[in-house]
């Protein structure tokens, strides 16, 4: 349980198991895993680089987790976000939520991802066949986050 920013790949199975290990109250675990896609905005992507704001990143994710805990009865929340250079098909982010019942876990996982995408200070830069480019924020992500307000 917790918040980790790391370069290394993570083990989805081990993270999922640890969300309910030693806690028989947990009846539901919902995970989200984001991966690097090979095509974005009609360009072939060769690799991805993730920059962040050390210090603020951890604080902003903790604020999002605190809000989720206020809104739903959760047993555990785990966030792992990778930084640095990532290859196509690499996992980027893991968000896991454990609760007694499934609806709280589904909703809290979606809430955390929507706010992570719009409030946590990470930036993606793609290496494409036409050179490097910073990824633009999507309006659909902003709209997704606004549905919780």
């Amino acid at each position, binding site marked *: 349980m917790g918040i980790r920013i790391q370069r290394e790949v993570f083990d989805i199975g081990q993270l999922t198991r640890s969300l309910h290990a030693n806690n028989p109250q947990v009846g539901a675990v919902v995970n989200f895993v984001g991966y690097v896609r090979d095509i974005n905005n009609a360009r072939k992507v060769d690799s991805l680089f993730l920059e*962040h704001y050390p210090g603020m990143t951890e604080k902003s994710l903790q604020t999002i987790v605190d809000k989720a805990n206020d809104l739903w009865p959760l047993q555990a929340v785990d966030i792992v976000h990778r930084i640095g250079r990532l290859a196509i098909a690499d996992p980027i982010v893991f968000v896991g939520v454990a609760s007694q019942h499934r609806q709280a876990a589904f909703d809290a996982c979606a809430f955390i991802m929507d706010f*992570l*995408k*719009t*409030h946590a*200070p990470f*930036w993606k830069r793609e290496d494409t066949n036409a050179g490097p480019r*910073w990824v633009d*924020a999507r309006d659909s992500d902003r709209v997704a986050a606004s549905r919780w307000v």
Partner: protein
Amino acid sequence: MILINYFARYREQLNLGGEKLALTPSLKSIEDVRQLLMARGGVWQDVLGESNLMCALNQELCRLDRPVENFDEIAFFPPVTGG
């Protein structure tokens, strides 16, 4: 003295990761700091003048009208794209 950080595309376009600035009486808010930096002209005006610019005060997202105090840490960056 205040610390100003720039991230991602802004850092590359400004060719600067961060700087220190003396906090003069005329700098009351983050917006005042932004206007002072934009007055450098050129890329400073273009980048910090972007309508969807985001900012943080002491590592928390905030609006441009937030007051600034001595030893504060400010950051300017483009909309975030993690996840």
